[in-house]
């Protein structure tokens, strides 16, 4: 058993190193070597797919701070990776990092990929980061997902700009219970 463990460790250490950019010093400081190698590999993959990588690093750091075992951290980072992929698939290849992160948060808040894709469809030129963030914020304030989505999508269909979404948020948030 000890040999098998040693072999696993050796295999992990002998893996080709992730590219230098993936070797985040924060990960090196907070994760054990086995976990770090795998998280860095995921970060490298995300970068290869042109997905934002900071959410992956942050998820790993969160796990470390919460005392999660290495395997759980890797699983959680993979899950975050999958969320970002779903968000990008819903938004399309042209989505920017902020939009992807906002869409991933909206999905976690209860939006469906269809909802996210719909926002992209009705707001093809404007960025969707602010509308999606406002949706997430309204849900955080206690508004029902469907109601929040109707409000945001209707404004998007009317061609509202970022300021209009922020104004919408100001109008609705007190009504649903400001924090």
């Amino acid at each position: 058993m000890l040999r098998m463990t040693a072999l696993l460790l050796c295999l992990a250490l002998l893996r080709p190193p992730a590219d230098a950019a993936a070797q985040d010093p924060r990960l090196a400081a907070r994760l054990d070597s086995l976990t770090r190698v795998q998280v860095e590999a995921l970060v490298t993959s995300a970068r290869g797919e042109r997905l934002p990588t900071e959410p992956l690093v942050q998820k790993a750091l969160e796990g470390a701070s919460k005392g999660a075992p290495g395997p759980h951290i890797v699983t959680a980072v993979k899950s975050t990776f999958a969320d970002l992929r779903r968000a990008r698939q819903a938004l399309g290849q042209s989505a920017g990092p902020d939009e992807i992160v906002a869409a991933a948060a909206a999905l976690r808040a209860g939006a469906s990929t269809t909802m996210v894709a719909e926002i992209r469809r009705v707001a093809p030129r404007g960025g969707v980061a602010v509308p999606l963030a406002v949706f997430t914020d309204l849900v955080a304030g206690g508004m029902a997902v469907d109601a929040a989505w109707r409000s945001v999508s209707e404004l998007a269909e009317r061609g509202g700009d970022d300021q209009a979404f922020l104004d919408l948020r100001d109008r609705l948030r007190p009504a649903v219970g400001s924090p």
Partner: protein
Amino acid sequence: MRYAIAVAAALVLRTGTLPALQLGGTVDLGAGQAAWDQPGSGALTQGALGATYRAGALFGLEPELLGGIGLSSEPAERTAVEWDLGGRLHTRGARTGAWLGAAVGGAGVGSPAARLTRLEGGLRQAIGPAGLHVWLSRTSFGAGTSGSKELGQGDTLALGDTIPGPGSMSGRRIVEYTDLGARASLGLGRYELGLSFVRRVGGTGVRRTAWEANGVWWVAPSIGLVGAAGHSLPQFGLAVPGARYGTLGIRLALGAAPRGGRRAPREPASSAQAAPRLVLATTHRLAIVGPPAGHAEVMGDFTDWEPRPLEPDGDGRWTLPVALSPGVHHLNVRFDGAEWTVPAGAIAVDDGFGGRVGLFVVREDGKAEGR
């Protein structure tokens, strides 16, 4: 001395604010050596499959459905089966709080012939990486399809081979017993240690106290080495006697929150008055109103998940001067070193570690979000 082969699987299904089910859990494969309390010979094979399902909070409580089936087999003698299905209500999260539960099932040799009912409850308390769990479980066996409560008979639970000494049990009814247990656990990164004791009241058998020391070493993602040693109580439903044992095995983790794995703290269901509340999130400051406390901390993606002390601002308000970029952020807060929680005003979502993390939005113009 006999050898035992054990296979166990625990699956976890969860929903929360996520639209889809999440599957997690563990599968344990192991073998060990046992010195039974009752003289016997031959090898014993045991298997168990358990699953739990947790939905979101309901009226401040977290309901959980549990089911399990186990079997034990001795070549040329018998195969015993026990199954149960029940539910639990947790007053708080997975690591701290109280719970009450009930289950029904069946047990017996060949096919479950005796009804099983169980009432149980427990208290959990987490202190940093350590956890303490105390529970009480009352198990009753009733008449099944055979119409007999006479345990120790082949047509019911076939407990004859679980009883240490023919004179002690033959002809007696095992109607019910109560187990009082305690388990202390410690999670240290890739290592998990546990120590548990159980005291049995009622029932039968000379052995009334059980203990176990165990450890898990996560040598690779989703693969842990498990070792355990202890002295078990008779498992009446499976016709397995008590034994001194030592086992080694491999634990395979499925999904994000394996059973038995160390869990991150969950959001407590404290009263609305005492619950912390995120009241301000701007590009340069964060403010939270919380319960009376000596000190408060926050951690999030804006601190690289390093705990940072919040500064008291009077009237239960705590602030942190911090640069926050516009957009979506994640955070947890805690007061007086208690559990990390999600303040109201942030969306509590599964953090992937068995707990909750809060989502909140910082606006582009840095305007205050709350009052």
